[in-house]
């Protein structure tokens, strides 16, 4: 997009506008074709390398074997659970963590965004927490809370906290003064301002925070499932790696990537449904 814009700006002035539009459109419609070709080429190279045994199958199983494992694990399972059960275990953890993180982070974000005292208390805490990688606090969480299910949810939840807090605070701070004044001049109390003006104004920003948090939480999953899990995609990959079942490892990685992609698409749909006005007014 930005490249197209640059071209449009740099294009010679005498060039006819309709012709320029056509070229831009052609260039844009080429993108998915190039993407598809790239993926097909990579897949082909991978299959060729595997067929010619250029690399040992322990390191690089053929794509067809990975696909086969997908069907096998989906049907018969791997380490006592089917693919769906592993997937549901992971999704359950991530969404439990998201729920908990949202319930904690949104009020904190409101506090930071709307009061100097709130900012004084929470801003430094969040700034300290934000850059710590989950693997660093994982041992501490185990020492404090053991290796039960809540510990795993906690690890993912901590990683989700900062993005939602920061996005919420930004949204709350960004509420237009005129909008607040308009509501006050119509008789809004403080509570009504929060409920009817600040919350809806900040909602697009909160959703952005949730989208980022979901990505962060999902990538924390494997770390969380290092801790005495018996189910989950991260656990499945680690078990497979211990037995050098590389095709299951690769299959698991691809499933994790696909789910992350689906999250992104789902939140975008949610945004279109919940805040269709965002960016328009």
């Amino acid at each position, binding site marked *: 997009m930005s490249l197209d814009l640059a071209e449009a700006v740099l294009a010679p002035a005498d060039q006819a506008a309709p012709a320029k539009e056509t070229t831009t459109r052609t260039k844009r419609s080429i993108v998915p074709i190039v993407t598809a070709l790239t993926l097909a080429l990579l897949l082909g190279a991978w299959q060729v390398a595997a067929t010619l045994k250029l690399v040992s199958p322990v390191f690089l199983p053929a794509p067809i074997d990975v696909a086969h494992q997908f069907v096998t694990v989906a049907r018969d399972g791997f380490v006592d659970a089917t693919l769906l059960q592993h997937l549901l275990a992971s999704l359950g953890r991530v969404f439990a963590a998201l729920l908990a993180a949202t319930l904690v982070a949104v009020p904190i974000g409101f506090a930071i965004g709307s009061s100097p005292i709130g900012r004084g208390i929470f801003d430094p805490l969040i700034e300290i927490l934000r850059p710590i990688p989950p693997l660093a606090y994982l041992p501490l969480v185990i020492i404090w809370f053991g290796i039960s299910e809540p510990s795993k949810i906690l690890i993912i939840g901590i990683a989700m906290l900062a993005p939602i807090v920061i996005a919420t605070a930004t949204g709350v701070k960004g509420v237009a003064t*005129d909008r607040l*004044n*308009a509501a*006050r*001049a*119509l*008789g809004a109390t403080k509570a009504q301002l929060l409920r*009817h003006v600040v919350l809806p104004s900040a909602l697009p920003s909160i959703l952005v925070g949730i989208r980022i948090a979901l990505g962060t939480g999902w990538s924390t999953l494997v770390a969380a499932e290092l801790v005495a899990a018996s189910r989950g995609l991260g656990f499945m990959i680690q078990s497979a790696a211990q037995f050098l079942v590389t095709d299951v490892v690769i299959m698991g990685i691809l499933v994790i990537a696909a789910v992350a992609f689906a999250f992104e698409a789902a939140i975008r749909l949610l945004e279109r449904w919940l805040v269709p*006005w965002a960016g328009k*007014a």
Partner: protein
Amino acid sequence: MPHLTLDSISLSYDGGAPVLANVSLGLRSGEFVVVVGRSGCGKTSLLNLAAGFVTPTSGRVLVDDAAVKGPGADRAVVFQDDALFPWLSTAENVAFGPRLAGIGAAERRRIADERLAIVGLPGLGDRPIWRLSGGQRQRVGLARALAANPTFLLMDEPLGALDAMTREAMQELLLDVWGRTQAGFLLITHGVEEALFLATRIVVMAPGPGRIVRTLAVDFGKRRLAGESARAIKASADFVAARESLLDAIFEREAA
């Protein structure tokens, strides 16, 4: 008769240079007071004081002899950038005040439809506001203010961002609405003709620090409501003369 009074107001923000110095201004119901002046003369601060958004450094803001403690539904405000709520439909925006007051959905809808008809947007209640034009949105802002049945209607350059054609139509609408209600209107504007055409009283302010330098009574709006055409009024000799004297007042210090 309800009256809004600014009594010997001075205002400075955070101990800075005074924005307003010893300003007094009254607004009674049925009046249409228009404040004009160059940029930086404190017009908007004056309106924010009347609305209760800011408190004066010294002096008093009164409604019927009671001190104003903050914003209230008796003083509705129309903003330059409409300040509508994009997550609500047009009707829900208009009925926002009644909703805060706890009025039921059916009655809110009736109020919204009625006010939308007054501002010339009948049947647009279900439209999302981001599908409205700039002029339409400004009308919705006006309808929202009217739905609160305000005693005073305060408008901060509501027509400033509109194109010339839309602005003329909106001026006629404001006169029409003013003629229908008992409310006292206070309008801030840069437009000299706008001030003359709408006001019953024009207040001229000057900057450095902001103060009132001249007050003049006019009746062109009443002539319009009596049936004379806007073009005939604006072309008439007394309108042109009044415009010259108003311009002199606004640029007094430069002329001197």
